[in-house]
């Protein structure tokens, strides 16, 4: 997923349908539009209230043809179906009324799906490169079994948080400021890093773990691994959360599976049973942003694991890590984050460019200091770390 950079400061939003499509009943349109907003309320505390009359609203919805006053004209049937503005630009959503908008039909263009997508933009989401995500840019046809992809859930929750069970007090608190942790600043080498099902990023080191923010470490950390993931040992080798929403932890010859923080079955099990073809005592594992497959790293080699294939590890593996241009051997951790895959070794990390299939060009260049860029250690080196690799 990708976040445009702006979001609404309030979670209670209003909308109005200022101009209806010509080919549909108004009440049916109102119902579909409400359903499209409901897609996003299901995963967050966002609320959407329809207004009528001349009230100002957050999201104004119009069905228009051709040039309609915003300098971004529609193009007739097909092509562009709709567009919407990010919160910083007003949040309005426009739909091309030359399309044949339909409801619960394989004919024409499904209003609910396109509207739900556009409202994602109105809320601050850019397009996703996950094909199955709602926020992917292409219309793939009517899906009677539509559900949000995990990618979409992660995206909207990154902006507006998860859905809470109890009512939220009036006025949202700002997120707590990022902190720096003395242990991590002194020795930033980690055991493992992974994303949770809810899109949070966790670093494991020894007996402890930290939740990370965009700028450093969340307050209230470190905590003991065993206090959150019951029966999970310390000094974990590797971890990742797969697209099934389950988190896998690896240590020695064994692995554990959790759904969030609850063990999902009878664990530990042997890696040789659950991940045939993958060695024991791995260095790192991740789901690679380039193709969504699981990659394991150990020493100078890596393995690709595809649960959908038989066998899940092809005969051509292992291959050399040097195929990942710029990534060193003997890494400690790997994690996908905001569309990139990051590799960590000792006190440094590398950002991998999936398209060029090499370490990304950036300023400062990689490797960079994990302590400064990931753990918010202000006294750490901000530039490129040494040339010893």
């Amino acid at each position, binding site marked *: 997923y*990708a*976040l*445009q*950079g702006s979001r609404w400061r309030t979670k209670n939003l209003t909308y109005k349908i200022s101009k209806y499509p010509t080919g549909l009943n108004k009440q049916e349109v109102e119902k579909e539009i409400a359903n499209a907003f409901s897609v996003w309320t299901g995963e967050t505390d966002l609320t959407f209230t329809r207004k009528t009359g001349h009230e100002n609203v957050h999201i104004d919805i119009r069905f228009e043809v051709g040039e309609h006053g915003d300098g*971004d004209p*529609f193009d007739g049937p*097909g*092509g*562009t*179906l*709709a*567009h*919407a503005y*990010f919160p910083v630009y007003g949040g309005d959503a426009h739909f091309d009324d030359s*399309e044949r908008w339909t409801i619960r039909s394989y004919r024409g*263009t499904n209003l609910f799906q*396109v509207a739900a*997508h*556009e409202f994602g*933009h109105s809320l601050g989401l*850019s*397009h996703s*490169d996950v*094909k199955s995500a709602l926020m992917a*840019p*292409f*219309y*793939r046809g009517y899906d009677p079994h539509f559900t949000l992809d995990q990618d979409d859930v992660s995206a909207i929750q990154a902006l507006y948080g998860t859905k809470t069970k109890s009512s939220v007090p009036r006025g949202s608190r700002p997120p707590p400021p990022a902190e720096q942790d003395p242990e991590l600043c002194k020795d930033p080498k980690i055991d493992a890093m992974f994303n949770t099902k809810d899109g949070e990023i966790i670093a494991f080191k020894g007996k402890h773990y930290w939740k990370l923010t965009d700028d450093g470490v969340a307050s209230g950390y470190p905590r003991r691994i065993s206090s959150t993931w019951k029966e999970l040992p310390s000094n974990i080798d590797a971890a990742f959360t797969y697209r099934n929403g389950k988190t896998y932890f690896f240590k020695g010859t064994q692995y554990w599976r959790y759904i969030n923080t609850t063990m999902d079955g009878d664990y530990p099990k042997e890696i040789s049973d659950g991940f045939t073809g993958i060695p024991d005592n791995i260095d790192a594992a991740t789901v690679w942003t380039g193709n969504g497959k699981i990659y394991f790293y150990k020493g100078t080699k890596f393995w690709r694991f595809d649960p959908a294939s038989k066998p899940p590890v092809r005969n051509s593996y292992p291959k050399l890590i040097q195929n990942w241009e710029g990534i060193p051997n003997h890494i400690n951790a790997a994690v996908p*984050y*905001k*569309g*990139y895959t*990051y590799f960590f070794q000792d006190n440094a*990390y590398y*950002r991998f460019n*999936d*398209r060029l299939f090499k370490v*990304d060009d*950036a300023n400062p260049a990689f490797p*960079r200091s994990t302590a400064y*860029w*990931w753990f918010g250690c202000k006294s750490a080196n901000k530039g490129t770390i040494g040339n010893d690799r």
Partner: protein
Amino acid sequence: AAPTDLVVSDTTAANYLAQYGYLPPINPEKGAFLSGDKLTAAIEEFQAFAGLNITGELNEETAELMATPRCGVKDKVGPAADGRSKR
């Protein structure tokens, strides 16, 4: 469904790629020259984003996807356009 045997000219592709953020806006008045390398790089970026084989060529699957109905918002927008994370 997109028509088969689709042929997309370089100009059409360039306009598409500019519209969705893979190329800078093309000014028809100035008739700016777009190098083959830049077009190829933009096609590669589009193919990578869309999950196609990255060839840099306007092959059939790329042309088909360019003809698929879609959202009008750019694919590459805002500070995320050249890297989602400062990290």
